[in-house]
């Protein structure tokens, strides 16, 4: 079914399309430059030049590895909510809040009507897509997660903040599609935090994507899926990207009880581990997925963004992933 949608969009992807969740590690010189920029020691233009260089590096690396659907690697942004909150109208940078140990972050505050400021991600997407013939995903954070990761001084409740965000994020989706994006990933890592709010998280996704011609993927990280499954299948997207490497067996067992009705991106690499998985381990994870879902509905990727790994680790992990996928592909095509 979604294969047909991909075809209609002009995308011809191999069996078990491979992709990544979004972020890649920043090369050391870029990380240093970001610090210097924050201290006003270099100009925006100098920083951007390094961001572009790093993006080129990652596009080339993804092509060398053989990934099918590419990302820009998010070399130009840090936190996935703060990045949008800094650009969108209606937000202010909030005060410092601790996340763990001695780590603090500025949690954004919604202080007025949220407003789409014009294209936020389109120029990076366009620039990256021009570097490759492979499809590059448009990457956004979903309305529920932006709401949950922000303070709300303006809207009467969480639901109205979430729905207002959805209406504005939709404009960015439209702009990406207009620029030519055919696959758009809308991340909702917070989606499972409050089970009772899932209905309006779904309503918000409807407002964001309904009627728009793209193949939509939603990535959600480690969360208590058992609490929102099978209801989460109501999310109006084509593909759900779930971490399988850590919680694999449980998740697939749940699918046996309530069939999974969408395409599934199987997160088969543990991004929080330095250890490079072997192709055999990865293969076993993919085969577990194939046992509960037809293979033409499965995509393969890491279980989250790779930004916490090193450049070398990221590359080695993805190469092992592609080795495993190629083996399975060739077995599938050689047996009638």
């Amino acid at each position, binding site marked *: 079914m979604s294969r047909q949608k991909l075809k209609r969009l002009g995308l011809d992807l191999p069996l078990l399309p491979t992709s990544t969740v979004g972020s890649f590690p920043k090369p050391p010189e870029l990380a240093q430059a970001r610090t210097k920029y924050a201290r006003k020691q270099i100009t925006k233009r100098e920083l951007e030049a390094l961001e572009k260089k790093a993006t080129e590096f990652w596009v080339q690396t993804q092509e060398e590895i053989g990934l099918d659907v590419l990302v820009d690697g998010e070399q130009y942004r840090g936190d996935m909510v703060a990045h949008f909150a800094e650009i969108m109208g209606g937000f202010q940078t909030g*005060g410092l809040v601790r996340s763990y140990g001695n780590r603090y972050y500025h949690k954004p505050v919604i202080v007025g009507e949220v407003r789409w400021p014009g294209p936020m991600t389109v120029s990076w997407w366009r620039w990256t897509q021009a570097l490759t013939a492979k499809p590059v995903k448009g990457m956004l954070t979903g309305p529920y997660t932006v709401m949950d990761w922000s303070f709300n001084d303006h809207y009467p409740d969480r639901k109205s903040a979430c729905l207002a965000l959805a209406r504005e994020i939709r404009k960015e989706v439209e702009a990406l599609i207009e620029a030519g994006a055919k696959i758009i990933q809308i991340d909702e890592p917070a989606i499972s*935090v409050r089970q009772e709010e899932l209905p309006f998280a779904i309503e918000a996704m409807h407002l964001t994507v309904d009627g728009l011609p793209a193949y939509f993927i939603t990535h959600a990280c480690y969360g208590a899926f058992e609490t929102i499954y099978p209801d989460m299948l109501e999310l109006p997207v084509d593909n759900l990207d779930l971490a399988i490497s850590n919680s694999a067996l449980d998740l697939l067992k749940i699918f046996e009880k309530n069939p999974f009705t969408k395409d599934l991106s199987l997160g088969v690499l543990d991004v929080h581990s330095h250890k490079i998985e072997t192709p055999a381990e990865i293969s076993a994870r993919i085969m577990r997925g194939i046992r509960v879902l037809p293979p033409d509905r499965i995509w393969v990727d890491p279980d989250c963004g790779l930004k916490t790994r090193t450049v070398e680790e990221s590359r080695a992990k993805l190469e092992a992933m592609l080795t495993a996928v190629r083996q399975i592909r060739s077995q599938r095509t050689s047996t009638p």
Partner: protein
Amino acid sequence: MELILTTAGSYPRIGDAADLQRHRQAYAQRERGEMSEEAFQKVEDETTAQVIREQIEAGIELVTDGQIRWYDPFSHFARGLEGVEINGLLRLFDTNLYFRQPVVKGRVRRQRPILLREYEFARSVSSRPVKPVLTGPYTLARGSVLGGGYGSVHALAVAYAGILAEEARDLARAGATLIQLDEPAILHHPEDLNVLQEALALLAAARGTARLALHTSFGDVTPLYRDLHALPVDVLGLDFTYSPKLPALIADAGAEKALALGVIDARNTKLETAEQVFPVLDAVLPALKARHAYLTPSCGLEFLPRERARQKLETMRQLRDAYLGGRS
């Protein structure tokens, strides 16, 4: 009706102002080996004294030490135990705060009092009574990796409760009159109420002259509200932010126990107004059997920026005064 102003646990360690960076800088210096453990403890002492002063200035009548020394609600206590190791980071309920998970490897035992020194210090710098806040035995067990011969959450909760009972005894002897136990995990596992009951009984037997307050947060308490009254505690602390129907339920069911009303949202910056809070008090207060109740933020204040945490407390006091003033 007396409405006592209290806080529910944590308090932000740093603020955005330049003079409120001390704790963070010292922490970094200690991590780099540029500051001794002793010197860092002194910074923790100063920060504790500062956040107690801030609470008192904002009008709080029963303060906490702000849990300045706590890495998180789980590992701080677990670090003081034999038989427990500390694991990687996990998300704390539905928050963006991460905790390190205790991993039980052997029989759990405390070598010496864990929270006593912290309480004694807080008391020594506070002109108002101090309420120690502990993560309860059931929630601690739920957040731990089982092992060391403890085959169930039940067994581990009872073991933790034995140690927390000793902690409660020490704290009561040192002068604590109200001890708060945080048990958010029970909201997600109502089937374990009997486990919680058994674990709390150990604390109740050891509390001496102190009263016990059970505080739930990070979830809707309404389905469990009536059952919580059967637990061997004196005060129930309730997070109203998840439970729009809670005021009506209390109005209907009444309250045998004293209540701590968590009507100030400690997870969002928006400041509460009389239009929001007064109707809740109107519904709840007439149903209470006790002649006093507590007003409190819905949970620890560490989820807010420092400046806003203080404003939340000031707002709570203004609302309390206006409410009582309008009614006397």
